[in-house]
């Protein structure tokens, strides 16, 4: 039919006040597909309840709980993890879910060709820091035999991982969408396995309907191992265009039960409203907005003192003051990472009068007193944020430096970010991230050693780097080696030190010790002052009072559907 | 021919007048809020079975008068005062409902332009039938039958088929007949016809007028608005002369037209040209006809005042090499042929036309609409390339010789003076444009020249600064003539130079043209569908039909002893204006 067979838009599907049954409507950022092995917003939705991995995160996101696997053990040396699948765990079509299915899934994930099946278009969502033996090597083509990869289905119910180095965060890392199992028959079968009619999953919910660009309907999966503890019969997902104008009108109109709240003004209004403020769920400081250097033939920001001046000259308080849900950021690493401390920051005071005074001094010493003679900086961004204006504004006020924003269409943004620019174009690109707050992710994956070293390359080395990267004729192994060569020798020593320190995390299986190394590495990264932290953003969700069991955690999926129930008598 | 109707209708006293109009005043609200009085106290009486002509110049209020009778005024217009008694009903004061029973039923209206007055998207028969069904005079099917019958009555052949046709599928004459049929289908006692034949060719006009005469003879009263005194004389019993919204004079045709009491009527009569006038003129010469606008004549109701032209200053133009033979014709056109190609089909507009124009003399070209007159004019002017044949200007082939020096020797005056002037140029700039284009004289000289020419055509040099739209039609035509004269041409091609103008203005323009010819010795190719104009102005006349010249010769010969049957037909269609002894029979 014209409207697809999506359910009613209203959220009022609940039958009475009992804990079981009912439906809710949630908003999600639109996606083109739901293959968890490719990085799109779809992978997060799958994670929320369509597929289930070996383990799940606890609702607060600080630990893991059993999923498909009900128990697991680690070897002494911290290199071997053995997972035992539940008895009788099945796919939604009733067929047994086996360790072989996992092995097959991970082979697909790491497949260096990736193209043939035509299923994925985004980048592989495999998380390198998991450190599975030979996984990265197999994926990049260095190792060609999948048997050499440290993943093995010992029997139907036992799955064994071998790591290249101890990784205390390994089990937590398995909660990432790329590690979700896929049903081999469905994926390889005729027809599009992501469509409701072909869907075979193992999560608490099945895909019942999907109207592209509009909505999705999920239905409770009776075959799910823990089905008796799944409350809701139905989940309606409204798909919202990324960056489109979303107001809270549907929420306040009762059409939506759970939605993210992004607009500062909305947040202010909700906070001020005694009823609405009760419905807010806030995860503080879980995201970071930052500036990363652009490469230009004008070397001015290659000078560490200049960058230091710019870093200290940022009026972080004013910038964060734009929104109630933003805090001035002293580090890139999110403060909700366990063990984070202020000591990591590059300076004792990242803002305030002293910081500005120091910045001014640095600038004057570099020959630009009050910003005189300083070239106009460019801030490249893919869409317009008030923070951009605030950055420009505070630099001008604090340092007398002129900056302009270059807000470009996404296609230009992606090209321009890593281009070598001419003299007239020097400055930073603006990025922001909100998602996983674990040490490996924040230090190794997100602002990775490669990225930092790349940022620390001088103009000449960067051109070399680009040449190698774009050399189609080179074999993958050669390219990796040459890039490593350029990065390790061409970059600033502090960046190389950071990379080396990160590598040391592989050498210990002791969690506490490893965390210390991570902390240390992150501090080194701050000291390079290559990437400038700007602000930490809180994540805010609102949910109708009837929604129960909601907790927001520091992973982009935020919560699992299976933990929710509705209580229509709640007000 | 009119059919009795079955339903009750307004009772009329046999002896009472059919229509009695008293003190009718109609005004229009203007954009600035003022009321413009278009009809000012019109009073007349129409007796049963008689026909009244309303004559007068353009804008005198004729149409507004008759439209006021049926209250067919645009939104901005309203009747301010007066009465119009039709039988026992005052049409001015009647309720809308009463008026509706009268419109179409008791009073039929014939509009000037049938193409516009017939709905283009409804078949003619249906439009006729409406006049019956709306008055509930008969059933739908009966109405259809009567529509067909009435179409037959007004002389449309094959009425059954024509009734199903749309207006645009009928010829002009048939449309006008259909329009008349629509007016009479309900058997009205009064038919009001507003210029019913002005848009038609003379020959067709004659047929339509005959039809109206027939209706009148059947006892229907008639009011006919016309600017053609000949039409009035031929078909009407009484006449009402209007000027500036007022009735100037009224009475029976012979009272008014044979012995006008008012100078305005006299002026109209004087200005009206009639075939045979020249023959009757004392000296009978065409080269110097008597002025139409005599000093004794009163000021005409237009703002054209025509002070006498002044002599020209020295020429700016270096004369073209004098021709070898000053007695040879200035223009010789030989075997011109022109066909227009279009996807709708080819039109052979001009077939083997040859003509000569003598120096300082006038060749008149007559023929009905579409006969190819304008095309000949354009071919002679060199605006069209002939398919075959050639035009020699003083011995030079116009198409070999593209030099501007030759071109300037022949200029053109168009029918529609406004359309031919550049709207965004001042009168002065319009006049000097041809000089400017050909780099003749300095700007100062050209300005001086424009002033002279304006004086020559009877305008003031100060007028040079005004724009064309600020002049009246007659003045615009004077400017157009001045413009044509600017490069001192030897030939002037005039394509219907007066047909868009009132008779009084026409008279002035014709006088002006005669005078210019007399003084400057310019030769004319004068095109007109008005035989009287051609007779008055021409030395020689050529008659065109279907693209070919069917007869040509000396003016006197053509008008006195026409040879071609078509020329006969044209002359027969003429309606005399003046009294006894000037009937068309004289030419038969």
């Amino acid at each position, binding site marked *: 039919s014209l409207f697809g067979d999506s359910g009613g838009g209203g959220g009022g599907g609940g039958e009475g006040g009992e804990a079981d049954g009912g439906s809710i409507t949630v908003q999600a950022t639109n996606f083109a597909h739901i293959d968890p092995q490719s990085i799109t917003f779809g992978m997060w939705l799958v994670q929320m309840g369509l597929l289930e991995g070996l383990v799940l995160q606890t609702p607060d996101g600080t630990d893991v709980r059993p999923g498909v696997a009900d128990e697991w053990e680690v070897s002494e040396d911290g290199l071997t993890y053995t997972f035992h699948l539940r008895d009788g765990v099945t796919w939604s079509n009733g067929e047994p879910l086996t360790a072989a299915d996992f092995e097959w899934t991970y082979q697909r994930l790491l497949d260096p060709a990736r193209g043939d099946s035509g299923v994925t278009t985004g980048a592989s969502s495999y998380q390198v820091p998991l450190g599975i033996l030979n996984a990265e090597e197999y994926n990049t083509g260095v190792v060609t035999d999948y048997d050499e990869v440290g993943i093995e289905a010992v029997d139907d119910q036992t799955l064994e991982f071998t790591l290249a180095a101890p990784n205390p965060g390994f089990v937590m890392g398995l909660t990432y969408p790329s590690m979700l199992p896929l049903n081999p028959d469905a994926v390889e079968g005729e027809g599009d396995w992501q469509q409701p009619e072909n869907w075979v999953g193992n999560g608490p919910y099945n895909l019942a309907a999907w109207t592209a660009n509009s909505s999705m309907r999920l239905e409770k999966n009776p075959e799910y191992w823990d089905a008796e503890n799944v409350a809701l019969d139905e989940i309606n997902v409204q798909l919202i265009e990324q960056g489109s104008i979303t107001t809270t009108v549907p929420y306040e109109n009762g059409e939506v039960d759970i939605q993210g709240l992004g607009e500062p003004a909305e947040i202010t*209004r909700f906070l001020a409203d005694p009823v609405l403020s009760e419905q807010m769920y806030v995860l503080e400081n879980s995201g970071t907005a930052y500036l990363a250097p652009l490469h230009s033939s004008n070397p001015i920001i290659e000078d560490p003192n200049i960058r230091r001046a710019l870093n200290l000259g940022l009026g972080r308080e004013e910038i964060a003051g734009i929104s109630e849900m933003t805090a001035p950021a002293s580090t890139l690493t999110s403060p909700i990472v366990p063990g984070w401390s202020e000591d990591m920051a590059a300076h004792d005071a990242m803002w305030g009068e002293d910081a500005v005074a120091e910045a001014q001094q640095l600038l004057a010493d570099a020959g630009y007193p009050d910003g005189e003679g300083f070239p106009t900086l460019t801030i490249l961004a893919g869409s317009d944020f008030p923070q951009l*204006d*605030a950055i420009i504004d505070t630099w001008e006020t604090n340092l007398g430096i002129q900056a302009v924003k270059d807000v*470009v269409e996404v296609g230009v943004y992606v090209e321009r970010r890593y281009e070598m620019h001419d003299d007239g174009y020097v400055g930073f690109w603006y990025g922001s991230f909100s998602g996983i707050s674990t040490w490996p992710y924040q230090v190794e994956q997100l602002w990775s050693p490669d990225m930092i070293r790349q940022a620390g390359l001088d103009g000449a080395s960067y051109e070399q780097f680009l040449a190698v990267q774009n050399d189609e004729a080179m074999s993958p192994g050669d390219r990796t080696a040459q890039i490593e060569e350029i990065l390790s020798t061409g970059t600033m020593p502090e960046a190389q030190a950071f990379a080396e320190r990160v590598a040391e995390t592989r050498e210990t299986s002791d969690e506490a010790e490893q965390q210390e190394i991570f902390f240390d590495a992150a501090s080194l990264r701050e000291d390079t002052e290559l990437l400038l932290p700007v602000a930490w953003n809180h994540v805010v969700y609102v949910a109708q009072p009837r929604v129960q069991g909601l907790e927001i955690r520091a992973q982009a999926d935020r919560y699992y559907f299976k933990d929710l129930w509705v209580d229509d008598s709640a007000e | 021919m009119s059919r009795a109707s079955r339903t009750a209708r307004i009772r009329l006293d046999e002896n009472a007048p059919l229509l009695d109009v008293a003190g009718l005043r109609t005004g229009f609200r203007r954009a600035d809020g003022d009321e413009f009085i278009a009809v000012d106290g019109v009073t007349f009486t129409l007796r049963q079975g008689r026909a009244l002509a309303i004559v007068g110049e353009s804008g005198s209020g004729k149409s507004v008068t008759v439209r006021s009778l049926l209250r067919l005024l645009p939104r901005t217009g309203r009747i301010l005062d007066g009465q119009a008694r039709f039988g026992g009903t005052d049409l001015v004061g009647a309720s809308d409902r009463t008026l509706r029973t009268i419109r179409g039923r008791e009073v039929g209206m014939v509009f000037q332009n049938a193409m516009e007055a017939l709905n283009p998207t409804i078949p003619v028969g249906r439009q006729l039938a409406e006049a019956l069904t709306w008055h509930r005079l008969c059933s739908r099917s009966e109405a259809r039958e009567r529509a067909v019958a009435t179409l037959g009555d007004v002389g449309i052949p094959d009425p059954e088929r024509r009734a199903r046709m749309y207006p645009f599928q009928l010829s002009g004459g048939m449309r006008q007949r259909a329009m008349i049929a629509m007016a009479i289908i309900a058997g009205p006692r009064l038919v009001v016809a507003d210029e019913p034949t002005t848009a038609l060719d003379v020959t067709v006009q004659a047929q339509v007028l005959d039809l109206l005469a027939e209706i009148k003879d059947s006892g229907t009263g008639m009011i006919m608005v016309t600017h053609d005194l000949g039409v009035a004389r031929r078909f009407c019993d009484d006449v009402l002369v209007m000027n500036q919204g007022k009735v100037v004079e009224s009475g029976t045709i012979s009272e008014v037209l044979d012995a006008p009491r008012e100078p305005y009527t006299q002026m109209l009569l004087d200005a009206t040209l009639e075939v045979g006038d020249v023959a009757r003129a004392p000296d009978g010469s065409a080269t110097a006809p008597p002025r139409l606008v005599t000093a004794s004549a009163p000021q005409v109701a237009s703002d054209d005042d025509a002070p006498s032209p002044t002599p020209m200053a020295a020429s700016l133009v270096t004369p073209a090499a004098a021709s070898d033979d000053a007695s040879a014709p200035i223009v010789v056109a030989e075997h011109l042929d022109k066909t227009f190609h279009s996807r709708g089909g080819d039109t052979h507009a001009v077939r083997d036309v040859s003509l000569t124009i003598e120096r300082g003399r006038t060749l008149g070209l007559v023929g009905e609409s579409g006969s190819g007159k304008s095309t000949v004019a354009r071919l002679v002017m060199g*605006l069209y390339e002939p398919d075959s044949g050639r035009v020699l200007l003083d011995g030079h082939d116009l198409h070999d010789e593209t030099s501007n020096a030759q071109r300037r020797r022949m200029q053109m005056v168009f029918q*529609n003076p406004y*359309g031919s*002037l*550049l709207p965004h140029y001042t009168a002065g700039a319009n006049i000097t*444009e041809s000089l400017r284009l050909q780099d003749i004289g300095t700007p100062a000289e050209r300005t001086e020249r424009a002033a002279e020419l304006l004086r020559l055509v009877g305008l003031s040099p100060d007028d040079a600064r005004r724009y064309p739209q600020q002049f009246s039609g007659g003045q615009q035509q004077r400017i157009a003539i001045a413009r044509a004269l600017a490069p001192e041409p030897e030939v002037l091609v005039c394509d219907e130079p007066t047909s868009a103008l009132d008779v009084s203005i026409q008279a002035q323009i014709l006088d002006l043209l005669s005078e210019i010819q007399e003084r400057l010795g310019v030769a004319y190719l004068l095109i007109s569908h008005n035989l009287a104009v051609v007779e008055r102005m021409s030395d020689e006349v050529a008659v065109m039909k279907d693209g070919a010249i069917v007869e040509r010769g000396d003016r006197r010969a053509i008008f006195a002893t026409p040879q071609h049957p078509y020329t006969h037909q044209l002359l027969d269609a003429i309606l005399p204006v003046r009294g006894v002894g000037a009937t068309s029979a004289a030419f038969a």
Partner: protein
Amino acid sequence: MAFISLWVVLLLLLVAIFAPLVAPYPPDATDYGQQLAPIGTPGHLLGTDTLGRDILSRLVFGFRTAFLVAFVAEVISVAVALSVGVVAGYRGGRADGVLMAATDVMYAFPTYLFAVLLVTVFGRSFWSVMAAIAIAGWVTQARLVRAQVMTLKKRDFVEAAQGMGAKGPTIATRYILPNALGPLLVTTSFAVPAAITTEAGLSLLGLGIADMPSWGAMINEGVRFATSSPHMIISPAIAFAVTLLAFTWIGDGVRDAFDITSEARA
């Protein structure tokens, strides 16, 4: 109506020209103590936005931008339309055929693509947005000019000019062109609001002008805050509506002025 509108537009023009004098603050001046101040806040008549920038000042400068875009785009598109339209209409034949073909293509072509391309290649700058609008606009106008020229070509004065010895180019440029301007002026006055709307629309798609205060961007932002800070959308929307109305009515007025017949009949 047209008369009042003319004054409104003149006033707006003055505001645009003297924006720095009219606006109480520079458009980018931030006031971090006064964010999202509502209408009527002392010092900020129409309130402030998320950065504490004065909305009135941004409106004033935004109008300047909008008007500049519309004006320059119109000048360009009119110039192109005139040259193409006159050539096609006057010469007919091949030139005409090409224009008609181009019209067909442009009519069915997603000009959005042009906009994206221009904006992506040349940045979200004044010039690319302006060019995008001009490219979309010229075809309609060229067609109009062409039709106009074709009617004028049949007027007697063209023949009169030929009779006086004027050549094609002279006729086309000196006699026909000035008379074809009238109807074009009408479409131009309607095109100004259309251009402003388009600029705003591009902003909504993230393709508008980024480095100047723009109404589109303001409305775009206002929509986001529609429930929480309605003042951010109300003033731009009203300013937008008033401007568009004024231009539309001027267009009506211009059309009436050129359309003597309908006035006479009415």
